[in-house]
């Protein structure tokens, strides 16, 4: 993989994750203002969003791999 394609791939992945998070936030907002949905559902959406950020943006999944490398 060339450096340019590597950068492009990384930025594209970030944009896709951002769009997923934006969609989840909009869904969360509408269910929140409808007030007919329970707390569990809305907080589950929050957990899903947090996992996405931690996994793809904070690279939590790479932690163990890094320590194995060292």
């Amino acid at each position, binding site marked *: 993989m060339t450096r340019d394609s590597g950068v492009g791939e990384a930025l594209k992945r970030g944009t896709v994750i951002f769009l997923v*998070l934006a969609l989840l936030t909009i869904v969360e907002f509408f269910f929140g*203002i409808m007030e007919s949905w329970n707390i569990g559902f809305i907080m589950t959406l*929050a957990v899903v969003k947090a996992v996405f950020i931690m996994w793809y943006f*904070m690279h939590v999944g790479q932690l163990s791999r890094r*320590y194995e490398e060292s």
Partner: protein
Amino acid sequence: MTASGAAGLSGSSVRMSRIYSEKQRGLFGLWLFLASEGFLFTALLAARFYFLFSSPPVKRPDELNQGLGLALAAVLLVSSLTAFRAEALWRFGEQKRSQIQLLLTVLLGFIFLVGVGIEWAEGFHELPIGGKHASFASLFYMITGFHAFHVLTGIIAIIFALRMASKGQLAGSENWAVEGVVKYWHFVDVVWVFIYPALYLIN
């Protein structure tokens, strides 16, 4: 290979190993710090849920500006994307483009703080701490204020990293300053991911 060449290579690899483990130690320390901060915010949010399920329940006041809450969530989400792009570009050696993304992150952070300021200014009129929603208001100002302080410290950290980068002090793959500040920024976003529904949505 000459003896001196072998010795040089050996010395270099030993030095790289030491630097790499320093980076690892730094990142490990950062993760520990983020975990401790996570516990702190968990305690604050637990208070919100305790009040919500107490009798009588502390409901979300209608005076809360829903539009502004969503706008704040959107600003922080976009700033997470710019921070991610900054880190990715830095990793691939595109330092100038990375610095632009970090500057955008700082700008969005300031916009977020202005939004919180507007929220507080509105809140002091419509949601006073000593008013009928005293319990909710106390929690609201405590949690959003504490989070805004973290956003401010994140902005300061990014500005420091930018200053170091402009002086060429972050050169080399062993430096984790950009990775560190970006991780901290994402943590601030993760915290808001929970604060937003807990304060603005659930009732």
